[in-house]
């Protein structure tokens, strides 16, 4: 098990956003976390990555307890994530977005950096090379000098993923990675995720769009902060509780 949560709960004042969530992700899986708006999906991500501290419960990654650790420490453990909105640095170019995200590996020391030593320069060159690779992998190389904030929406989303890859993550948390994309962009993204999985990446993603269900090995369904179903995509699709939760929502499969 790569990631495991036990009894994860988060209350904000009177509102319980996530309630008693037990879930696990295995190495190499693509797991979908779905549910109607407000079900607690993004909050779960925030709990895992340390932006919020859980009221109860814990989070284990590769066996060790990362509950409530600060976000940058969680990133160092090997969890990368994208954000639902603005998952990028809007005033940087696309290339710089990824270059800036290569903070962790390779890491340059303070004086190295300041004095522009040759080891620093070599590392920066290496980073530039790897960043360009990632951009090519995700089809962003043509726009690498555009300001990220000016990109069309779909490109911005993919850039978010490119950025997250810089952390050399073992687990990637994607928050609505294909929301608002055109059909072609979605096809492309799904292909990219599949490729990442084949290279050993584990992905947990949150989505509304049902098209992504086909990509997932497993689906977990949340409603009002609780897990109401879990299983293979076709099982979940036919689950009574799930259909009822989505009843009236325009995302019903």
């Amino acid at each position, binding site marked *: 098990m790569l990631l495991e949560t036990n009894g994860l709960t988060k209350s904000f004042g009177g509102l319980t956003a996530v309630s008693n969530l037990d879930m696990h992700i295995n190495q190499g899986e693509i797991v979908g976390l779905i549910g109607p708006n407000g079900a607690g999906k993004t909050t779960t991500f925030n709990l895992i990555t340390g932006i919020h501290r859980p009221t109860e419960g814990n989070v284990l990654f590769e066996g060790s307890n990362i509950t409530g650790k*600060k976000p*940058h420490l969680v990133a160092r453990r090997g969890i990368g994530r994208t*954000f639902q909105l603005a998952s990028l*640095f*809007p005033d940087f170019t696309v290339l710089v977005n990824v270059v800036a995200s290569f*903070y962790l590996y390779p890491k340059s020391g303070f004086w190295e950096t300041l004095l*522009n030593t040759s080891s620093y320069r070599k590392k920066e060159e290496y980073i530039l090379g790897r960043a360009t690779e990632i951009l090519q992998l995700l089809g962003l190389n043509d726009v690498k000098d555009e*300001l990220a904030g000016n990109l069309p929406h779909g490109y911005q989303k993919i850039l978010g993923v490119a950025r*997250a890859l810089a952390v050399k993550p073992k687990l990637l948390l994607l928050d609505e990675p294909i929301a608002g994309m055109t059909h072609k962009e979605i096809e492309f993204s799904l292909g990219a995720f599949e490729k990442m999985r084949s290279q050993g990446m584990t992905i947990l993603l949150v989505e509304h769009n049902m098209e992504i269900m086909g990509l997932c090995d497993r689906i977990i369904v949340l409603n009002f902060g609780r897990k109401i179903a879990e299983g293979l995509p076709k099982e979940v699709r036919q689950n009574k509780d799930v259909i009822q939760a989505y009843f009236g929502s325009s995302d019903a499969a």
Partner: protein
Amino acid sequence: MKGMRGGLTKPICYTVLIILLILLPLFITKLYYIHIFIKTLLYIIVVSSLRTIALSGQVSVAHAAFMGIGGYFSGVISKELGLTPWLTMPMGGLAAMIIAVLIGYPFTRVRAIYFSMVSLLGGIAIVNMIRVLQKWTGSAGLAGIPPLSPINIPGLINITFLGQKVPYYYFTLLLTLGSLLVLYRIEHCRIGMTWKAIAQSYLVASSVGINEAGFRVLALATGCFFAGIAGASYAHYNLVLTPDTFSFLPSIFLVMYMLVGGSDRFSGPIIGTAILVMVPELLRGLKEFTPLIMGAIMLIVVFLMPQGIAGMFDQIRAKYGEVRNRKVPGNAA
């Protein structure tokens, strides 16, 4: 066209400017003007360092106070302990840096506009402390600060600072150039890039492993170090210090110098400070009206020139040539 990509124009302009500055005392002999230049140079260091802090998304309204820490620390230590200012000035910078980290650590818990709010408190507290420690800092001000000790290498150089403006001018020029060099380097290496990333989105920055709170403290420490050094230099130049020089109003003016010059570019604070320090000197007769005029300038800039004066050059260049993307590290400002 002006401003070629990767330009030779820029370095040439700067070199000419520096040469002019070096040769300045040859054709400006009125000591009063030299004094203005010295003051301007010191404030350029301070405002540029304020901008360094602002790179990380934090606008400090307490920066003058850190100048004061450097000045008072160096002044008191050299006066009471008899140490040479050459030693106590860097100590002043360090003192300012240490205080910045100590109070900065809780203050960086809050971000953006709330940081400005608490920095106000910090600045006032610092000046209060200076006033409270009257035993050392003097009840009406600190006097009797030793000037820079003479540099004496027998047979080669003999420079006395006491009572001379020109040696002070060259020292300040050297200090300013050195400080600007360091600040420029920090901004354009990965450290600066990380600061700019944090300023745009601290959430995204922390998701890639950046300890954004720690980096913000680093920005604060760096900026305050240079402010402290500038303050210490000022102390050993002016030989007298009063707390008023470092209180709330001066801190506001510093922010104004930065924003009027334009906080987007490295040259912004330099241009802004140069203009806004010179202006009151030229309007010496209207002493009471000075804050009013400054305030009016602030309003004009806010309403008409959001990018500041340095930004205006961009706009002009955009009309007549290409505007390079300034946000990419590695490009000259």
